[in-house]
């Protein structure tokens, strides 16, 4: 590594050479062909294999996840539709249950039922009646009596 020092326009270079290939004297070191063997030289090949295997497994897992996602992508609308159907079924079930509970809570006695039936029958009968008759039915009897008499006199005349 070299450093360049500038002092008042004077340039001079002071090169500091790194101490390369200087063997570190380790009394417990082992040398091989003149070179000192460091501890990291002794790497187990099994460890590398394990790392490679782990990488492979993780890559395989990622790949599987990707494949699964790609396979599910076209099925997504169908899955969402199925979800909606399921939700609708649950809602329908809840509605039926609520209606049943409501019906159970209503107390129907014979009088109420008969009155309701009579109302319906009366409504049906009124639907079949002539419109003019329906109007006349709402008038008081005295008024109808006068109208009746007047109409008969009109026919006689």
């Amino acid at each position, binding site marked *: 590594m070299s450093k360049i020092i500038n002092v008042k326009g004077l340039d001079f270079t002071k090169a500091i050479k790194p101490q390369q290939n200087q063997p570190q004297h380790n009394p417990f070191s082992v040398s091989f062909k003149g070179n000192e063997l460091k501890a990291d030289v002794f790497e187990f090949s099994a460890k590398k294999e394990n790392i490679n295997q782990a990488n492979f497994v993780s890559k395989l897992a990622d790949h599987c996840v990707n494949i699964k996602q790609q396979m599910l992508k076209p099925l997504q609308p169908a899955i969402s539709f199925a979800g909606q159907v399921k939700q609708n079924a649950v809602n329908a079930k809840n509605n039926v249950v609520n209606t049943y509970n409501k019906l159970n809570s209503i107390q129907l006695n014979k009088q109420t039922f008969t009155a309701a039936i009579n109302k319906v029958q009366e409504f049906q009968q009124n639907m079949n*009646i*002539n419109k*003019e*008759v329906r109007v*006349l*039915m709402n*008038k*008081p*009897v*005295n008024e*109808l*009596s006068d*109208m*009746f*008499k007047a*109409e*008969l006199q*009109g*026919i*006689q005349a």
Partner: protein
Amino acid sequence: MAKVEHIIEALGRHKDPQSVHVLKDVGTNSSFDFVREQTARTLVRKNTHESLRTMIINEGKGINDLSPQVSEATVQEILELNNKEEVLKILEDTVKMHSNEEIKKNANSLQALLALSN
């Protein structure tokens, strides 16, 4: 101006019991056969004691009307009634107790007709 037919029908369907009296006083005393006929039909359809009594025991009205058209229409309407309980009761009383033989006879004939029709 409302038609006579509509007024009679409205009185027939009216909930006020006074409507029977109007039909009895005005309709059954009319000089027109078609008015008496429709009034008779309406009173029978009312199926009340008062309306049926008028059609059975009164002279010159209902089944005792001098016009065969009116009397036949009244009999026909009585035969078509769904509930004949009240009319049978009135006919029985009329046959037993009425002072007018002609009315008794008509009531008896109608009673026999109803018995046959059932």
